[in-house]
């Protein structure tokens, strides 16, 4: 009883929280090798080496930062990622946070992530970090809107806001086929909220690292780790909402979830560096003029499909 409700789900969440970002870093290394950025052996060790270097480097101080908020922001982002992972159902019984409104809770994690990212950039009290924070806030709202419409779409056929019900509703047909627009939109939002690849406007190269431009050492390690963990949480939610979660033949449910998450992560790691960074103006238009109407279409599609 306790084993099923508490121990196994928590163990899986912790494992995903630790292994997920590591595997994502390895996948990133693989992609970088494909692009000719790195060479030689040590693909599996490279993330650990980078982490060890960050641990040795001291954390720096800027002039008159908001100390508490600055030190806390990476940890808060990691906590949000962990909260997101806790919502992922590993099997019908193994869910760490099994509440009736897990989709809404995920939405609030996305909303609070905006606050935390702003905090990270603002509290350092330096100019380039602040510009990164402004940029993210200006765009964050549209990310949340797109993701929420898409997720309401998967809640419709399930007639529930709980992710477990969403998975059960996919027994006949996975949502990725039933609502073909949903998963692509959700994954784009995933890249945007963890600011990777073309959507990396908050931590971008033109700001010399954006919100983390003045962060070093262990603090930077936590921040980068949390960013990866957030993407892992995203892949977990995408798995549950669109790829049928634990559903699948032969293998036990949690393994299916892990495989699907890895596949999503690999896709995102490959997509990330494939495109040039958007200008903020392009990004705003893309979100409000293209993706948001597409999300409406997806929602109407889901509604019509649920009625018939």
């Amino acid at each position, binding site marked *: 009883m306790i084993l099923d409700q508490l121990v196994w789900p928590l163990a899986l969440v912790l494992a995903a929280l630790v292994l997920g970002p590591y595997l994502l870093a390895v996948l990133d290394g693989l992609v970088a090798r494909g692009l000719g950025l790195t060479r030689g052996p040590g693909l599996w060790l490279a993330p650990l080496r980078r982490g060890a270097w960050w641990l040795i480097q001291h954390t720096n101080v800027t002039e008159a930062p908001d100390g508490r908020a600055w030190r806390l922001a990476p940890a808060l982002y990691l906590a949000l990622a962990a909260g997101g992972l806790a919502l992922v159902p590993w099997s019908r019984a193994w869910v760490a946070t099994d509440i009736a409104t897990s989709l809404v*809770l995920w939405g609030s994690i996305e*909303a609070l992530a905006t606050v935390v990212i702003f905090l990270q950039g603002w509290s350092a009290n330096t100019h380039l970090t602040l510009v990164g924070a402004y940029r993210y806030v200006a765009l964050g709202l549209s990310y949340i809107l797109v993701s929420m419409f898409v997720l309401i779409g998967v809640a419709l056929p399930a007639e529930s806001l709980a992710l477990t019900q969403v998975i059960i509703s996919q027994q006949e047909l996975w949502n990725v086929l039933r609502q073909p627009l949903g998963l692509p939109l959700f994954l784009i939002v995933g890249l945007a909220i963890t600011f990777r690849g073309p959507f990396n406007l908050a931590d971008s190269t033109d700001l010399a690292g954006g919100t983390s431009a003045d962060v070093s050492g262990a603090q930077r390690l936590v921040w980068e780790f949390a960013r990866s963990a957030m993407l892992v949480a995203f892949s977990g939610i995408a798995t549950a909402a669109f790829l049928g979660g634990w559903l699948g033949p032969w293998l036990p449910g949690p393994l299916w979830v892990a495989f699907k998450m890895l596949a999503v992560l690999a896709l995102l790691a490959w997509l990330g560096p494939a495109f040039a960074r958007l200008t903020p103006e392009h990004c705003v238009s893309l979100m409000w003029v293209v993706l948001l109407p597409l999300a409406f279409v997806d929602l109407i599609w889901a509604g019509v499909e649920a009625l018939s």
Partner: protein
Amino acid sequence: MNPPLAVDIAFILLALFAVYTGWRVFRTDSMVRASFFLLLSFIAVGAIMLLLSAMYLGAAMFFMMGVEMMVMALFMVMFMMNPAGLNPMMMVHQHRLAIGAGIASFVIVAAMALLARFPHRPLPADLQEVESLGNELLGESMLIFESAAVVLLATMIGVVVLSSQRGRYGNAGEGSMPPGLDPGGEPAGMPEKDDEDDGGHHHCH
């Protein structure tokens, strides 16, 4: 129905946290911090709602307030005219009256809470609270829900009209004049009158 001890402890901690952060809103130096303190207060109240088994409202509270306070913080930075909102501020008027009114209203509402007798009718054990809320919203109270939506739409349009640069009477900024530092004083901080230049404002990278 006696809630377990853990719920009681959680409630007390969250309640103290909500009051403390609510108080800090008006006692902190930076506006950004003020709005994030308010956010913390809201989050604590949202968690209490979850404890009261209002699953949808609690989660929606996090969601709504996260976005709302973020916007609030940004506006604070923008309007308070100081770098990233990191200046101290203690800008109050009618302070005594306000304290008095605050305490008086607390006493009145608290007295109502303590003295009035409310019926004790707890939630039925088999209540599907999210489902019942959804049925209510899209069933009997559809009209209320929809009118709220219409009001929101009207607000959006009104807000855009109010705050846009070119209004019905031409450019909104025309003839604008900053207030004086003291009532009735010279307009402050107009660019062309900026003669109290400082030694140097360099922040090098």
